[in-house]
C-alpha cells in the first residue's frame, strides 16, 4: 500500500539540512498526504520566533517557508527534551507548533509513512 504520510526529523537549521524536509513536506501535502516534521537540537531554530527570518538560500527564506508549510497543513512538533537541553522556553516557539517526545514522532512514523532524518 502506498504511504499516506511524510515524516522527518529535523536536527539542523542550516539551509542544506532544513530546506529539503520542508519542501518534501509541502510536496507531500500537494499529493494529499499528511506531513509531520519533528524539530530537535539545532533544528529548533527554524521554529523559534525571530530566528528563521535570517536564514536564506537563493530566493528561499526559511521563515517564509515555515509559514507556507504551516498554511498547507504541515504539522510541526518541537522536541521537549531538546528544548530543555538547550534552555529554550516553549514561549520562544512560533505559534502553531506542538511540543512532543519520541513517542509522538514514532507513533506518526509507524503509520504507513515515509520517514526521513536530516
Amino acid at each position, binding site marked *: 500500500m*502506498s504511504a499516506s504520510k511524510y515524516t522527518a526529523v529535523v536536527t539542523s537549521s542550516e539551509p542544506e539540512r532544513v530546506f529539503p524536509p520542508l*519542501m518534501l513536506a*509541502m*510536496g507531500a501535502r*500537494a*499529493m*494529499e*498526504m499528511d506531513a509531520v516534521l519533528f524539530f530537535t537540537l539545532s533544528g529548533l531554530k527554524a521554529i523559534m520566533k525571530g530566528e528563521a527570518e535570517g536564514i536564506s538560500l537563493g*530566493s*528561499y527564506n526559511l521563515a517564509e517557508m515555515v509559514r507556507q508549510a504551516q498554511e*498547507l497543513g504541515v504539522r510541526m512538533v518541537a522536541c521537549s527534551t531538546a528544548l530543555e537541553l538547550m534552555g529554550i522556553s516553549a514561549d520562544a516557539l512560533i505559534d502553531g507548533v506542538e511540543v512532543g517526545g519520541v513517542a509522538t514522532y514514532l507513533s506518526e512514523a509507524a503509520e504507513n509513512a515515509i520517514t526521513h532524518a536530516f
Partner: protein
Amino acid sequence: MSDNVSEIQADKIVDARGTSCPGPLLAAKKAIGEVAVGGVLEIWSSDPGTKNDIPAWCQKVGHEYLGCAEADGYSRLFVRRGK
C-alpha cells in the same frame, strides 16, 4: 500521442512561471479543484522539475497526465481531473 498535446483546449490555465519547486505543484493542486471532473487543467511552468513532479502527482492523487508541450522558455503541462 504527444503530437496533439499542444492543441488540447484546457478548461483552465494556471500560470506558475517564475515559481520554483514546490510552487508549480502547489499551484496545480489548488487549481485542479476549479476544474470539473473530466475537465483539463493546463499548467505553465519554467521550473524543470515540474515535468517530473506533475506526472508523479497525477499518479498519486488519481488524475490523468496528458502530456507536455514546450513553449518559449516554459512548459505547458496538461492534466485531466480524475476525481
